[in-house]
């Protein structure tokens, strides 16, 4: 498989990479480049070079997972490129090929799929109050904990319709609507991507010594959710 050719099938690459002159303005404005050892200018350069070996290295690396997709680069590029969109094309291909499991940051995709991905399909929301567990979200503070422990009353107080029928904030999405979302996922490749993330991740979990007869691998998920080797940041 020609990796560059595969990337060009993603229209976000056509939108994101027209002709990069490697000026580095994207890197200057990039919040990720300030925090991580990350340089969107180099990403654009590698993809534009069509160097298959370097593109494969990128797809297996932590580097493509450092971007926050804020798209600040889009505004500033004098050529109208958008490295954030190049990243999205690279991440999609990395997941299709299973390369994402080769890096610590890439492996995190399973945790995101298990929470956000499954919320979308099962609840009709990306985020739901039940998943804002204080142990996983200490940053939400004592007020977040108070909200979590008193969800029904707090949400009712401010006019939400938590898990209720009809309209309103946090209403229960009708089952027939969730069925439509599931059919959309089925037809458009959403479930196929979920399946790839699960399959490649389980293979990786086994190779890293995790085991689970139910094939859910909660210890692996906890590991990828909390592990940081401390080598990602700009020194």
């Amino acid at each position, binding site marked *: 498989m020609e990796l560059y050719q595969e990337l060009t099938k*993603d*229209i*976000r690459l056509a*939108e994101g990479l027209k002709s990069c002159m490697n000026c580095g303005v994207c890197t200057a404005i990039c*919040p*990720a480049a300030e*925090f*991580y050892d990350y340089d969107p200018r180099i990403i654009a350069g590698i993809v534009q070079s069509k160097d298959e070996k370097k593109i494969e290295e990128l797809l297996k690396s932590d580097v493509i*997972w450092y971007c*926050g*997709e*804020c*798209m*600040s680069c889009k*505004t500033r590029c004098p050529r109208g490129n958008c490295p954030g969109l190049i990243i*999205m094309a690279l991440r*999609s291909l990395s997941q299709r090929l299973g390369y994402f499991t080769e890096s610590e940051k890439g492996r*995190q995709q399973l*945790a*995101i*799929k298990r929470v*956000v991905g499954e919320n*979308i399909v099962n609840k009709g*929301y*990306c*985020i739901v109050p039940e998943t804002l567990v204080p142990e996983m979200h200490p*940053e*939400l*503070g*004592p*007020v*977040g*904990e*108070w*909200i979590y*422990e*008193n969800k029904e*009353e*707090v949400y009712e*107080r*401010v*006019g*939400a319709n938590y898990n209720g029928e*009809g*309209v309103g*904030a*946090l*209403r229960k999405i009708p089952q027939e*609507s969730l069925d*439509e*979302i599931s*059919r*959309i996922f*089925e037809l*458009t*490749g*959403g479930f196929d*991507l979920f399946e790839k993330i699960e399959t490649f991740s389980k293979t990786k979990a086994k190779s890293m010594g995790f085991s689970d007869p139910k094939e859910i691998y909660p210890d692996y998920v906890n590991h990828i959710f*909390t592990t*940081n080797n401390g080598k990602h940041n700009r020194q």
Partner: protein
Amino acid sequence: MKQEGKIKVWQDYQKEIADDHYFYVRSCIRQNFFPGSEQTFLKILREELNKDIYENPHHTTCSGIGYHSDVVPFETIQTIVARQFALMTEAGYQNLAVSCITSFGIYNEIIETWKEFPAELEKIRNYLKAATGREFEIPQNVAHASDIVYKFREEIYARKKYSLINQQTGKPLKIVEHIGCHYSKMFPSKGVGGAEFPYVLAGMVESWGGEVVDYPERRHCCGFGFRQYLVMSNRGYSVSNSKKKFESMEPFKPDAIVCNCPGCPMFLDRWQYVIEEMEGKTYGENGQGIPVLTYEEMAGLVLGYNPWDLGLQMHQTNCEPLFDKMGIEYDPELKYAGKDGNLIGHPSMVGCG
């Protein structure tokens, strides 16, 4: 400069915002963290401005957080968005009012993609028809909910009870406005003032008596970064970006921060608490934090709505210092009361210092 010249110079930064008859699509994050803000927006439109705004219970997430954390393919999100448009079309509406900046960016990205790649539009029409039997029209007008508040800011102020003025000094309150990256960084023409001079929140602040703080990192990201917050071991990215903004705004002594995006106020509120816990550092007056508001909360306060109806008890960083400056009357005893007036417990600690 002559008036005609001014209009010509600034015409690229103007945006058409529909006047009435909106189809409302909610925000996942705003519903979880600031549900009172969505309630307030609908109340202002319906009860103060007498506008028609419709919500269909069958609309869902746009799946944007999944898309921008790369677990939802482009074709999938396009078809989910097409379904939202189909619900709008079926209900007889043409103007979309969007509660979320991530969604707003996505609606714009997808509509622009369909303009540039017509084959993609046909593909998505076929997917939606096959999956749901539905058909759709592309909205004639896509406005973020803040665009609508901005459009009617003078009408709102005409009904005011309070202003963004310090009642003790008589001076305008100093407000930091945070726009949210996906509002106009991707498609500048879709936002009021574009990416370079975003005026959607600044217009509200100035019309309601306040003064906008112009500080070096005004346009920097809050640090959400999707996967950079969603995964616990990445959250250093998120807090570091917010900290960069706090350090930059601190010398200007802001009285409050107001946000456009649903996620940004959550991060700018909660990361102040985290920074205090980690480093003992606070950025507001008297060792307190800087109050962080959504624009709906700011509008609600100006209109004299009860702060606890707005949901300001759901913030970690106390907003009471701002109430006191504005002269807002409130009952601290009812801060943690439920609908029936009885106390719903009490957070173990409030504030960030």
